[in-house]
């Protein structure tokens, strides 16, 4: 019955779309156009498009869900529940936010429900309460406000070459795990997933100021840990 449905997109077009989904355009207009195409493809029941977004985001959903639930297995379950919701409600999705934001918002709600059931729920808003002042850099490194023990550029200059080193990857994931959950959630969405500030606020249901404070602390903390790592290594 599907074959003779005039609304079903032709197969070659689906393939071209699926290919396009893997590409990340820097141009915002092109991205919006692409998002629109993808959305249309999903609404018209394009399976290739659905497979592509699953392959693209599944690991990312599991990674994010794992911040809130106890085990990897539960995080995987939460991600699967999210896909089931996405699969059955994609037709009702109205594109007021980006597709990825919408998916992450579903995930975030499911993870929250799951964490509540596990009895280890920490409300997102409580995560965001500004704590007592926590300096970005150890005050002992300044004298009268100026650098006494100044930072230096790390020896290898590009993130790519740094990341080729296994110990750097291990160090950064340990550093991420050491962060409090609120900071980790914000920095994961902002810097690992590439969401903008407004999107993060809508996914986590926190205020703009909270988002910025958490981001600042998280980035400062990660920089400190990376610097400590490079100083130890060199």
């Amino acid at each position, binding site marked *: 019955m599907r074959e003779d449905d005039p609304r079903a997109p032709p197969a070659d077009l689906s393939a071209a779309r699926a290919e396009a989904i893997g590409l990340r355009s820097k141009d915002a207009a092109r991205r919006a156009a692409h998002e629109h195409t993808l959305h249309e493809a999903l609404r018209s029941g394009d399976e290739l498009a659905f497979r592509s977004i699953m392959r693209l985001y599944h690991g990312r959903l599991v990674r994010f869900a794992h911040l809130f639930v106890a085990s990897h297995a539960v995080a995987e379950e939460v991600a699967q529940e999210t896909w089931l919701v996405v699969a059955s409600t994609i037709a009702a999705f109205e594109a007021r936010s980006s597709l990825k934001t919408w998916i992450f918002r579903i995930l975030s709600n499911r993870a929250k429900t799951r964490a509540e059931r596990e009895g280890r729920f920490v409300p997102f808003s409580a995560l965001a309460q500004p704590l007592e002042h926590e300096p970005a850099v150890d005050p002992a490194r300044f004298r009268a406000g100026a*650098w006494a023990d100044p930072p230096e550029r790390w020896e290898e200059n590009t993130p790519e070459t740094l990341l080729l080193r296994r110990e750097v990857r291990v160090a*950064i994931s340990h550093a991420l795990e050491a962060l409090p959950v609120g900071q980790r959630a914000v920095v994961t969405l902002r810097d*690992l997933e590439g969401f903008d500030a407004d999107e993060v606020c809508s996914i986590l249901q926190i205020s703009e100021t909270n988002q910025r404070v958490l981001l600042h602390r998280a980035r400062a903390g990660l920089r400190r840990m990376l610097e400590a790592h490079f100083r130890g290594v060199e």
Partner: protein
Amino acid sequence: MLSCQVMTEIVTDYVESRISLRRRLEFWLHLAHCSHCRAYLWQMRTTVKILGKLQPDTGLASDVEERMVARFRSASEPVPNTGATLTTRWLHRLQRGLGAGRGRVFIVSVLAGLTAMSAAIGHAGPLGDVVHGLVETASVLGFALTTAVLLRRLAAASSMRLSGTSYASLAVLGVLPLYFVLLRRCPLCHVVAHVLVFHVASLAIAALLAAALGGARWQMR
């Protein structure tokens, strides 16, 4: 003039463009003459770039993918929206939930099971009455199903177009002959209560089911 220590605290506001123009100018001025703070800003930006390159370490298992795609496929069968009433959309969902093949197998096995039970227990006591009621409900469902299939064939042959609602009405008409057969075999007083309790309810279910299994899907063409 900003101190280096203050610089490290407002660097996120600077990067996020959440800073007044005056502060921004001060920030630039400081950077212009302070190589340490330039190095600090470089470290911050490098940290962010490294984070952006971290790939998740789990992939998507192929069995999970197939399961989700199956759900996507059944969910994205287009819901008729040209002139679709609330009833037809609801019916369509019901039909989707049943699944064409599995639904029929399920109904047939329920019918067979109930007939066997009814034969075993007979009309003895309240339990017997309940079983009897279930069997009649089930037989009405079976009858409605047959009517639905026949109607569908007929309409397909004559390329008619029927809405979900008119389909349901036709299915109800199709069920009625069964009632005459049943009514003739029962004493009148018993029949009134019996019909009210079991048949009116089962008639409604039968009509909806018939329409769900035949009408809504077929209207989409």
